[in-house]
């Protein structure tokens, strides 16, 4: 068992050549007690908007846009929810690294 609470599961990763499209997937768990409430959702969408990649969040068969705070709020992800982050674009890997870090640090 990893000491880490987020687990990376790289799926089809394209060649590492500069500027090519990447696809990346990571599983994260909502560790903060109150879930993805307004403030964490604001942080998450704010960070996601810094990347060019399209980033989605999947939960229980629903998928929403990680750059939309409203989308994230309507996921109503509570404490302990397992989410799948998926990014496609030139900076997909870096984007998910950054977002997974937020989950790990409980959006502190």
């Amino acid at each position, binding site marked *: *068992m*990893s*000491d*880490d*609470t987020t687990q990376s599961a790289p799926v089809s990763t394209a060649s590492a050549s500069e500027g090519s499209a990447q696809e990346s997937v990571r599983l994260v768990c909502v*560790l903060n007690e*109150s*879930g993805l*409430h*307004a*403030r964490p*959702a*604001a942080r998450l*969408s*704010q960070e996601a908007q810094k990347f060019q990649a399209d980033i989605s969040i999947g939960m229980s068969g629903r998928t929403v*846009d990680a*750059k*939309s*705070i*409203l*989308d994230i*709020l*309507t996921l*109503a992800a*509570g404490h*302990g929810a397992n989410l799948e982050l998926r990014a496609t674009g030139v900076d997909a890997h870096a984007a998910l690294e950054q977002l997974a870090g937020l989950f*790990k640090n*409980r959006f502190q």
Partner: protein
Amino acid sequence: MALSILTGIPISAGISIGKAFFLNRSHFGQVPRQTLAAELVTGEMERLRQAFAQARSELAAIRDRVPAELKDHALIIDSHLMIMGDPKLMGAAINHLETLHINAEWALEKAVSDLEGAFKALDDPYFRERLQDVRLVAERVQNDLLGQKVDFKSIDSRVVLLAYDLTPADTIELQVDKIMSFATVMGGKTSHAGILAKSLGIPAVVGVSGLEEHIQDGNLVILDGIKGKVIVEPDEEELALYGDLKYQFESYRAGIIKNCHLPGETIDGYRIKVKANIELYEEVAQVVDNGGEGIGLFRTEYAYLNRTSLPDEDELYEHYRDLADILSPKRVILRTLDLGADKFMAHFGRLEEHNPAMGLRAIRFCLRHRELFKTQLRAILRASVVGNISIMFPMISGLKELRQSLALLRECQQELVRQGLSYNPDMPVGIMMELPAAVMVAEILAREVDFFSIGTNDLIQYSLGIDRTNRHVSYLYQPLHPAVVRSIKHVVDAAHQAGIECDLCGEMASDPFCVPILMGMQIDAISLNPQTIPGIKHIIRQVTMDDCKKLLKQVLDSPTVSRTNQLVRETVFQKFPDQLSFFFSLLDTDEGPSQ
């Protein structure tokens, strides 16, 4: 008779009487709706974009003016700024405008009503109430579109503020010193308005429908933040009644705070200790301020949560030592880890547990993971040389678990001796009585420990076989169920027969209906949230042990919970009819005590 009496949700206790002042703002349902000729669409889109940009810069400017002590408001405004820029709001509004050829106000309104569907479908009330944030943000943009400005400067005397809603941004712009109290149409228990009222310490009622229809600027109103009423143009009699109630409430509030440092003692001289349940060192100040006579339950879980590595022995030792030291000579009862495997998935792997409440948790988890447990036991033992520390094991079901725990404690003591580290060999050892099995064998357990502490939250759930977070059965969560009352009595009697102390640290300790009954059983101490201590001490200080014993006798004969409640009301609260509502109105309803 008053012109009208409106009702809402009381969110901050108190009474105020004054002139109504409306915070004049538009809200949905009133926006103009027009269809546009095709050539006007581009210009209208630009107007909508401009309004968003303007609203955004206004809000950002307000955010920069937020004083440091209102940091929470700043964070809420940040989330509002994100909503304002969200593609699902502005993008959707632009899209409606472009495809339907409608005016900007209508397009925005449509975008909001699209979002309403998504939010209203959510089960969780917290997330559902966030629709309100969307509305507030959109309202700001509407105000810019309609050219409406809110003039906060015009309040010239102290008023009862009335508004459709109050936003965190409003609260920065308002002259709060001019507001005696406020009422809003919108808002629920978790609304920003409630947080504001509590931080200002003024009465407030939210969720009042008909506010705008029934009240005009300058009307005389009574705002009752205890029962949740707004009384418009009261008559002489109502004014006299509420003037009196205001005085009583304010003396009650001042009195319980003033007297909270007196001992928990009945009129006829019977002493019961009133202690606090806490989980953070930082809460010590509240315990002292509210007259807590020690810590009846220190939840040690916090040091293990919100981190990826386990705390080491030295860190825990320093933590416990500092706590004991600052409260010395008051007693501090440290409850050993009451966690399940779900909280340690990173270290021990997640267990597939169908029913975690009956799974590997608390003492069972600790006895399985002995090294983790021993680290905590050694830290507690080392800290026990300072102040007045007791240790308490949770979820003990019988003698075997108790003896296994005591054996580990002895093992740790021997290790410390070998290492030349000191500990207090006489540190009292107690157990939580929270399983029906432990209740049944209380006499046996009492012979091998120094004290009991009854954890009523779990005891009630396990005794009545209900999960109170399950809304289908939560109505069955009844602290005064005859089975629960008898169980508690059995444990107290067993403890006293064995010559040991019996405390109680569940929510029943902060329930004014339960406390007189517990006192009748001659419980030695109760332990509760620090904020509730003054109100409970106040009740203790105005009853007699004689009353409590008589009440207990009747309660034990009472076959139903409703009869029991009636008995308590008649015995304790008949003399003070307003006291119960005062007591409850001062509790922080958002904060469900957990044990």
